[in-house]
């Protein structure tokens, strides 16, 4: 290890070290970031939800989008797996169905980056006991 010889060196070191704990930092205030939840129940996994989750993690990072990608349970849209729920900061969550890599790419480029809606939205019109 080379010694840190100046404040600038320290700042460089910090930038490098931050990638190591990025996953943890993101968890602190998820509401301020783009949140992508991938439904990972049996049907989702069978339809390729794991690959889609990996795709989101890798691509969002590559395209420099600050996002938290997590997995969740069955959302109930078994006819449209893999399904994902995207929450932009300060907005209501939107659910997309039949997400393959092509649609995932569209979601990132259109909805996440510009807020423009794309095909595959599943309208959520049920109520939960919280409301």
């Amino acid at each position: 290890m080379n010694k840190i010889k100046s404040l600038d060196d320290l700042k460089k070191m910090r930038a490098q070290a931050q990638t190591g704990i990025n996953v943890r930092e993101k968890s602190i205030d998820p509401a301020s970031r783009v949140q992508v939840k991938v439904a990972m129940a049996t049907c989702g996994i069978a339809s390729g939800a794991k690959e889609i989750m990996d795709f989101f993690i890798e691509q969002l990072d590559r395209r420099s989008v600050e996002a938290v990608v997590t997995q969740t349970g069955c959302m109930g849209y078994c006819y449209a797996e893999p399904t994902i729920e995207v929450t932009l900061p300060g907005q209501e969550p939107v659910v997309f169905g039949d997400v393959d890599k092509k649609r995932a790419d569209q979601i990132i480029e259109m909805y996440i980056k510009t807020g423009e809606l794309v095909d595959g939205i599943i309208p959520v019109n049920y109520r939960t006991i919280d409301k």
Partner: protein
Amino acid sequence: MSKYKMHLLVCGGTGCRASASDAIVENLKKELNNQGLDESVQVIMTGCFGFCEKGPIVKVVPDNTFYTEVKPSDAKDLVEEHIIKGRKVERLLYKDPVKKVTVSDEEGMSFYKKQLRIALRNCGFINPENIEEYIARDGYMAIGQILSENTPEEVIEIIKASGLRGRGGAGFPTGLKWQLTRQTKSDQKYVVCNADEGDPGAFMDRSILEGDPHSVLEAMAICGYSIGADTGLIYIRAEYPLAISRLLTAIGQAREFGLLGKNILGSGFDFDIELKYGAGAFVCGEETALIHSMEGKRGEPSLKPPFPSVEGYLKKPTNVNNVETLANIPAIILKGHKWFSSIGTEKSKGTKVFALAGKINNVGLIEVPMGTTLREVIYEIGGGIKDGKKFKAVQTGGPSGGCLTEAHLDVPIDYENLLAAGSMMGSGGMIIMDEDNCMVSIAKYFLDFSVEESCGKCSPCRIGNKRLYELLDRITQGKAEFDDLARLKNLSEVIKDTSLCGLGQSSPNPVLSTLQYFREEYEAHIIDHKCPAGECKALMVYSILEEHCVGCTACARACPVGAISGERKLVHSIDQSICIKCGACFDKCKFDAVLVQ
């Protein structure tokens, strides 16, 4: 971007390690390896999460799932269910004892809701044995910033303006202490970190050193720069082996990175830190006694003045700060004194860490803004009293503090308010008592501690505390007379007024405060020979209710001293002269025939 898409944070504090968190880490790694996930999921051992009641804790990020009471054998389920299938392992989630619902993250837990973590900011978040994780959290940026931008005087002004006061007990303004040490001219000065945490039930300093050692090292360097010292010493008790090993690792890494040693960050400022081990004597938390102990002398206090800021370690000016105080420093430098002084009350700024212990649901370590009320701490964060019993008192400030009652529950906690109520902040131990605790016994317990820990140098403390203890013992035995209450009070005041150091000046506090708030309990012991809480064994009488006794002989067989006599199917009786009041007969009897009075 790191290759890991998920982190498993496992608590590595002393408490959780005692519950096999080492093995949890090992098993998680093994399971991940078996599933071929070791490349995408990272297991990290962190410092204390504070929620010791439900340890060991495993937290999964980024989805923020908080698992409690995890056993090494749960590793398989965590990996197969949570990580592979994406389903939370319900049985390991926290269940809110009041609302009876399962909570999966800290946001939903009342234990964390009211907390504000400054001193504990990195505990339970970073790996304390990896300096890079500390650096990623702006570690060593504060020392870097002041070395390039501020004069020592400016740093002292920042600390003064922040309103930070000593977290070890007395609450002396930290910036002023630094200024006094800076003003003394000398060829050599020292920065001392007081890690001799001695209050029964307090473990915040240990947790900070175990969970975030670099924050203390960085703060010591900042202090060294401000007062003009190139040497730091950490006085730590040898009975904190994990804290010592993490500190040594941290010091080694900081030296390797050039953040301790000569010419730090090319500024020309030199600073290095060594450890000094103490034998775990309570009095060595007092700064003059601590300094004598570091010099290899007896750990006895000496008269102040001269204060250590003028004549301390090896007769050189020495600045002594407590661990928690130091842990606040880097945050104050980076976020500014205005930010810090905006938190807390008028005279007590920032936050305070408390160790919750005793009859409370959520035993653990918490950090709240000054001015939070005892009620919020005990009922909201602490989750209320165990087993639905009634709250009786809370002891703050350890053996030097006092007991506060229900009437004080809405007092905002700060240095002044606690003193005014007859207790003190101390290092932040909080022992919660319920209706089953006898207040005379509590006072006796703390006195016993002070008698043990008195160094013996001055007679008020050495002899006076012993006599106080004997008086209390007589009361719990039911052998005291009414005038003993006046003697207790009088003797307590003499000890307070005439003792040499803080130990004797505060050791009668538990007696005085219980006498003030629970006088009727003392009187019940003396006049009625009864212990209302039913804790003082000598005052209990076990007898057999003739109408309930069926003569099963169970009690006679359970009695360890043969005090119970009686034939089969006939009524038994207890010989009071032999009975040792162990309660074995009471526990054994199935017919409620043993009466306790």
